[in-house]
């Protein structure tokens, strides 16, 4: 991986931490949960692309089938989904710094490294768990008559609920298409080809 990419990732990381952007993303619950948190995880996934070539052999072996890595991802995301943790991150800059370090390094990085080691069925299992859970959390936010976060209003909580449901539906749809229809690898563009050949698309394993 080009080290220049790493510089870009570091710049994004820093930019997200600088108060105007950090505050802007954290004053709204939906932006906090559906934009800032995924971006921080994405930063870690980006770092993983750089670390992968330099990963020590013993670590790659210890992360058997990507299991320890994906367990770290599940526990880390569960932690930062807690309303109390979100509140503390908003109210307390040192806690926010912990979030800014742990989401990329203890969630995104293991996700990027372990995902490739997981068997296809394992990946499908994670998707099949993650998508309904995301939708259920969204539904919970919509249905809750009380505010779950001290720092977010009830209407913001409802918006966050809709956004999470929207993401769950979009991911579910994308996954459904990938699983049942497959992904076009080399679409035929030649208008001279017969119809049957145009529809002939190679099936790849979903979400590799």
């Amino acid at each position, binding site marked *: 991986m080009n080290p220049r990419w790493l510089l870009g990732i570091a710049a994004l990381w820093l930019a997200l931490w600088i108060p105007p952007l950090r505050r802007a993303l954290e004053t709204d619950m939906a932006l906090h949960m559906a934009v800032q948190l995924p971006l921080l995880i994405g930063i870690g996934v980006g770092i993983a692309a750089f670390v992968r070539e330099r990963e020590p052999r*013993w670590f790659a072996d210890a992360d058997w089938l990507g299991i320890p890595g994906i367990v770290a991802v599940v526990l880390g995301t569960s932690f930062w989904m807690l309303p109390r943790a979100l509140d503390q991150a908003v109210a307390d800059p040192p806690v926010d710094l912990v979030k800014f370090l742990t989401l990329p390094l203890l969630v995104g990085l293991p996700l990027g490294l372990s995902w490739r080691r997981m068997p296809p069925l394992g990946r499908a299992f994670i998707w099949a768990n993650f998508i309904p859970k995301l939708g259920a959390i969204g539904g919970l936010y919509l249905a809750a008559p009380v*505010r779950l976060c001290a720092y977010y209003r009830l209407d913001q909580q409802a918006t966050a609920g809709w956004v999470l449901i929207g993401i769950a539906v979009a991911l579910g749809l994308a996954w459904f298409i990938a699983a049942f229809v497959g992904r076009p690898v080399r679409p035929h563009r030649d208008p001279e080809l017969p119809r049957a050949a145009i529809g002939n698309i190679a099936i790849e394993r979903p979400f590799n």
Partner: protein
Amino acid sequence: MTRGFPILLALVLASGLAALAFETEGFRVATTAGARQLAVARAPRLLPDVRLVDQDGEPFSLAAYRGRPMLIDFIYTRCPTLCGVLGDDLGRIEQLIDAAGAPAPFDLLSISFDPQNDDREALRLYGERFGAKPPHWRIAAPADAAGLAALLQSFGVVVIPDGLGGFAHDDAIYLVDGQGRLARILEADEPNQLLADISELMRP
């Protein structure tokens, strides 16, 4: 699989679950309000002495209540929603106390966190709306900004703008014991449970 696998997995599980247990107080709470309720029940919190002014313009200090348990709620008088519910709740508690006949076991105090808008007249009108009679039930505002900040901090009350010119805030009722300590946080969103809790507390 190598020998490293069980070690790495155990490490990840142990540290991750420990962090979750820490944040949820042993998997018991998920919200800031829940954690605060638990913390207060575990260790009553000594409150600062703050100067306030009530609806009759009478200055008093929180410490003057020492020796008498009290119930406190936090309001702002322009509040179109929650503060009305809180006012009704305290009004019903007042009726419960009156009906009991014995010397009142609690004093009631509604504290405005919006002293800029809540002048003496606004406090008086809010009190009249719910039948508050000082000094037994005072509607008051902190005398200065530092006092307000100290109160919100010590009670753990978070007040945020609601985007419509008002505030979003909690709907809890705070029990302060005779030693001036925040001893219990009662949720006001279940009025029947609240009144049952109060009756329980009133029992000699």
